[in-house]
């Protein structure tokens, strides 16, 4: 057995060369291809992970946005509900207010109509009362009534102020009513019976004595005597008959009239009745509303 050292060395060199060559043309290229594919796959996986992460992030943001939208929707719905509720309350309040206004206006209309009807009834009642009084007073003793009214006239003349006396007798020519001194406060309702009647006053300086019925000569003389005694100097006197007076004696000059008759009394009473406050009706809707 011989060992060929040259052969060993040459074979070792051959194998070394083969190792070097194969590492260049086989192992490195294939391992690089594997590594490249692994890197590519890893990059793809990383990209997929990134995409997945991005998708998760977007999903989270979308969920957050969805939650925000839902919260905003809830808030808007709540706000709309509150607005609608407030608007409903406001509308209801307006409707109630309008209804109350309508009710109040209706009540006022009813009240006015009731007042008007009451006034008409009062007028009718007054007219009826005057008619009844006229019927009742017509058959009375004319002389006694006249005497009573003459005494009453005498009393009224004594309570006249100086200015009124001048206006009655014509001593005060064209005296404006606004410049009259105020009536004596003690006279009360009787002062309201004096009035100016420039439109119906007889022309000239005449003092008209008006009665409801024709006076007798005696009665006229008594009146002239009374007036002369109380109002001298007198202007020219003139007796007139006015049945509407029902009874009584009235003095009328160009600027002043002294009422003293049942007609004026009834007129005063009617005015007093008209001026009286109307009592509220028991079944007033306003009272009913207050009760409810």
């Amino acid at each position, binding site marked *: *057995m*011989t*060992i*060929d050292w*040259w*052969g*060993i*060395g*040459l*074979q*070792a060199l*051959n*194998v*070394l*060369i*083969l*190792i070097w*060559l*194969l*590492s260049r*043309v*086989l*192992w*490195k*290229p*294939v*391992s690089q*291809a*594997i590594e*490249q*594919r692994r890197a*590519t796959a890893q990059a793809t996986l990383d990209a997929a992970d990134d995409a997945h992460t991005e998708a998760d992030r977007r999903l989270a943001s979308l969920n957050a946005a969805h939650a925000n939208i839902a919260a905003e929707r809830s808030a808007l719905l709540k706000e709309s509900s509150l607005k609608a509720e407030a608007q409903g309350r406001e509308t209801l309040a307006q409707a109630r207010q309008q209804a109350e206004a309508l009710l109040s206006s209706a009540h006022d209309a009813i009240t006015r109509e009731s007042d008007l009807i009451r006034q008409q009834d009062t007028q009718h009642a007054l007219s009826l009362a005057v008619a009844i009084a006229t019927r009742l007073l017509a058959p009375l003793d004319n002389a006694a009534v006249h005497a009573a009214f003459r005494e009453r006239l005498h009393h009224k003349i004594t309570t006249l102020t100086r200015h009124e006396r001048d206006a009655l007798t014509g001593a005060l020519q064209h005296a404006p009513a606004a410049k009259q001194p105020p009536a004596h406060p003690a006279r009360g309702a009787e002062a309201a019976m004096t009035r100016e009647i420039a439109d119906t006053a007889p022309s000239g300086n005449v003092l008209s004595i008006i009665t409801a019925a024709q006076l007798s000569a005696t009665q006229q003389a008594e009146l002239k005597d009374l007036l002369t005694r109380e109002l001298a100097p007198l202007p020219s006197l003139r007796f007139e008959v006015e049945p509407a007076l029902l009874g009584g004696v009235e003095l009328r000059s160009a600027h002043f009239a002294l009422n003293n008759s049942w007609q004026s009394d009834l007129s005063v009473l009617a005015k007093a009745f008209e001026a009286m406050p109307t009592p509220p009706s028991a079944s007033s809707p306003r009272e009913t509303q207050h009760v409810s």
Partner: protein
Amino acid sequence: MNSPLTSEALFHLGPVPITAAIITTWVIMAVLVAGAWGMTRRLTLIPDRRQAALELLVSTLDVQIRETSGVEPTPYRSFIGTLFLFILVANLSSLLPGVEPPTAQMETDAALALLVFVSIIWFGIRGAGVKGYLKSFAAPNVVMIPLNILESLTRTFSMFVRLFGNVMSGVFVIGIVASLAGLLVPIPLMALDLLTGLVQAYIFAILALVFIASTVEEGRASFNSEPDSRTSASARNGDGDGDKDKDSAHQTVVPPLTPQPLTPQPLTSQQPTSRTSTSQQENS
């Protein structure tokens, strides 16, 4: 038939005798390089069958390196893979009529064993440094230095003898049977020779890998261990955690070797890594 223990020179290149084994080796080298060059042209990201076969070869080699030695296969891939491919093709070349496999000659096997011996030293120094590699011979203690050196020589020699004996005997038996029997009688033996060639190539490559990896690991362990021989011994016997706590900051984590060439097993923490275990494997 010439003696397999002798090699006749066909011609000389200067002082260098060129034998048939060298010529066959050159042809094998040319075939391997040309085939590899032709097959690795135009590698694409999406592999075809050719590229898939190449990647399967490389991936299988990487898996074997990783599962056998527990190390990263990149530094050893070219050396171990080329050894396997060359020995496999050289063994299979005996099937060609008139071709004698180069591995049936002592010079080729000795050259391969010499390359493994040198590569063990090379990778040991590269992995653990000169100091670490030299200190690995003093493990578990300095008394073992001669025995460890002798073990390095004998395991390399055993690789050479194993490969040469198996291949040469196969060729010899087939030649004898072919000379005695008919034309078709040696075919079963040739099929058996195919299996033998494959197994021998695998064993040679795996043993080379195991020797290299164990040398690197022992060199690193010796470099990182305490000079206390008791600690080193206990650590090498696998029952010592005494230096683990003390030198944990200086320890380089090296996966333990699991030299199981035929049936790769998953790594365990109690694998023996001494030279005795490798010797037992090589004797198998």
